[in-house]
């Protein structure tokens, strides 16, 4: 038996024994464990499951053991996720610290920063949120204005962030501040870590057209950020490098999400919900044709996602191509949800009722409109492809 086979059998056994039955099954947003200081566990098993996984470092399997990770190889991590899928185990917890700050700290952080911040992330003890966009900035991210003045022993931070997901529930925020106005806009940006308990930090929820939203505005009014050598990631004034590294990451994540979303064929949903004719076809031939086109593109997109994954596992690094995935995946997802609404007809035009799960489909449809805006608009992705990949003049 090879080491990997052995790892698989051990992992399988351990999961069987340690993953509580209530932590298995169909996973959905409301079942998520976000952790953090203010988190209230939905039930004892949720905490148990988080602790057990954290003890093995399996909340962040590929991170180094010294920082609370599992120190697993890519192959081992792959096996772990396969085995978790096999028994439909829930993710022990979710945290922007895992998906976004962590990778940045691992790449740009000092040993002290890793020591101090990665472990609590791995254990789900501190919940992070992201502070990039500002009311004025939008697609032009480098134009951020939130100011951080050097006051000797501390930074004095003033400004406003938008689209900070779950900021109202987060303990810390990693954000971009402007520490220098003199140079070109991409310089003078500093990647800063700020405790949300600091005086002068406040948040306000943003309501979306879907009626739901994880987003907040976050305000900094004369916030004093103590200089303790840990508060800045990367060099002062060079936060743009950290940010762009994370954005690429985020693009992959988002396109991944929508790749996932596309796993069920729209046409099959239509056939199931609307019924079929004597030939076994969706009755409405026009809807059927549009569904087939969406599934053709959806399946092609999943195939590309798979190819990209296989290539990166074969050692090819994914650069600006992630823009193509982000662009196509999000536009596709919008198209899919237009069709989902067409399939639902009048049954899915209601909300604030228990007839149709509070109009979950309509809310999701509206929510997808943001897919091609958040994490860099489709237009920005196309610009990136045009310049970095096609090398067209600009």
């Amino acid at each position, binding site marked *: 038996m090879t080491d990997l086979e052995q790892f698989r059998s051990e992992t399988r056994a351990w999961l069987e024994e340690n993953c509580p039955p209530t932590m298995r099954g169909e996973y959905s947003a409301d079942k998520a464990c976000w952790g953090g200081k203010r988190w209230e566990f939905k039930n004892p098993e949720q905490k148990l499951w988080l602790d057990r996984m954290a003890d093995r470092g399996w909340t962040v399997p590929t991170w180094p053991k010294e920082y609370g990770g599992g120190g697993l190889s890519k192959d081992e991590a792959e096996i772990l996720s396969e085995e978790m899928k096999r028994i439909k185990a829930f993710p022990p917890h979710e945290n922007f610290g895992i998906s976004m700050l962590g990778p940045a700290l691992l790449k740009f952080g000092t040993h002290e920063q890793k020591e101090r911040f990665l472990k609590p992330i791995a254990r789900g003890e501190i919940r992070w949120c992201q502070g990039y*966009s500002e009311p004025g900035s*939008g*697609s*032009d991210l480098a*134009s951020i204005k939130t100011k951080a003045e050097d006051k000797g022993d501390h930074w004095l931070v003033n400004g406003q962030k*938008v*689209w900070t997901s779950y900021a109202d529930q987060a303990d810390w925020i990693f954000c971009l501040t402007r520490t220098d106005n003199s140079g070109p806009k991409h310089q003078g940006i500093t990647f800063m870590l700020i405790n949300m308990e600091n005086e002068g930090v406040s948040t306000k929820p*943003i*309501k*979306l*057209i879907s*009626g739901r939203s994880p987003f907040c505005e976050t305000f900094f009014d004369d916030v004093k950020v103590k200089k303790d050598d840990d508060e800045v990631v990367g060099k002062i004034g060079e936060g743009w490098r950290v940010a762009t590294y994370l954005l690429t990451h985020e693009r992959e994540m988002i396109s991944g999400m929508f790749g996932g979303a596309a796993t069920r064929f729209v046409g099959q949903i239509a056939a199931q919900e*609307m019924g079929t004719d004597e030939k076994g076809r969706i009755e*409405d*031939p*026009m*809807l059927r044709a*549009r569904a087939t086109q969406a599934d053709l593109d959806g399946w092609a997109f999943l195939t590309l996602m798979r190819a990209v994954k296989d290539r990166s596992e074969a050692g090819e690094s994914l650069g600006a191509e992630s823009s193509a995935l982000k662009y196509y995946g999000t536009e596709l997802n*919008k198209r899919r949800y*237009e069709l989902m*609404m*067409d399939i*639902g*007809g*009048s*049954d*899915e*035009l*209601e*909300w*604030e*009722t228990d007839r149709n799960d509070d*109009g979950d489909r*309509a809310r999701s449809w*509206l929510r997808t*409109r*943001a897919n*091609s*805006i*958040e994490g860099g*608009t*489709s*237009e920005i992705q*196309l610009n990136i492809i045009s310049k970095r990949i096609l090398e067209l003049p600009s």
Partner: protein
Amino acid sequence: MPLVLNDEQQMLQETAAGFADEKSPISELRRLRDEDVADGFHRDLWSQMAELGLAGVLVPEEHGGAGFGHVGAGLIAQEMGRTLAASPFIATSMMAATALSRLGSDDQKAEHLPKIAAGESVFAIASDEARKHTPNHVSMKAERSGNGFKLSGEKAFVAEGYAADQLIVAARTAGADDEKEGITLFLVDASKAEKDRMKTIDSRGFARIKLDGVEVDGDAVLGQVDQGLAALETILDAGRAGLAAEMVGSSEGAFAMTLDYLKQRKQFGTEIGRFQALQHRAAHLYTEIELSKAVMLQALVELDANPEGAAASVSLAKAKIAQVSRLATNEAVQMHGGIGMTDEYDVGFFMKRVRVAGELYGDQDYHMGKLAELMGY
């Protein structure tokens, strides 16, 4: 009939536009939603429309209306769509007025048409029963009892159904659920119906209607017994044309907001309207909206000229305009970026309303399929 507006029609459109801008800007729809008004419109606004003579635009003059025809009615719907003004105009002033003046007995006309013109009576058409529009799918029963009928069954997605005083109900007097024959239209006092409010995403007034053995006498029949489908199609076509016109207005409204934004919003040190990729998409959208206006007017002109022969023009308009208004609102949100996604900003209201208006009385797929059959392939 040329596809141009005469002076009378242009004046009417200006009146409607002025009214919509002053009395019913989008903020009124927001208020309607925030106050959770079950009717789906403000009664006082509806009365004002009646005072202006808008409610009776299709009602013959002898019954107190303006007898203005579908072109006039469509122009009003278009202007209401531009500011998303909420009213029972399409269901009452276009569909019910068409139904009564074309099918009604003298008594029915005399009783109802003046009230429509005066804005005193709100009508709703109760035809659909399933999630997707299928006029011939009528399972609501109407059994003969005494010299009248007894109606039992449920209707879904009834526009203005919650506020309605009167219902025009499609029920089955013969045949099986999907048969074209055996459908009869009835005038039913809404107080006899169980109304179950539908809170739709557009904050307008919809309801599911249940009739549980409701007794009506013979003269409640609208038109001929068992021959109601053709009549229903004519009523539906009036509503479809009205919704098409409304969606044209909403497309124009959303597009206007977008153009303003493109001209004032700055990114990368310049107005985003300077970026050619956005310019070309805006120019394409402009062209599609021009097409929408043309097919809208054609459908309205045909409805005035020859209602039974207008089916194809109406389906063309409903399908094409549903597509264009979808494009217009999607582009509006995308070009606004994040702010377009916020509830605080108005553009989302357009997206929600055209989605509902597009679905009502047949979506783009339904009308494209119908068109293909009418064209013989």
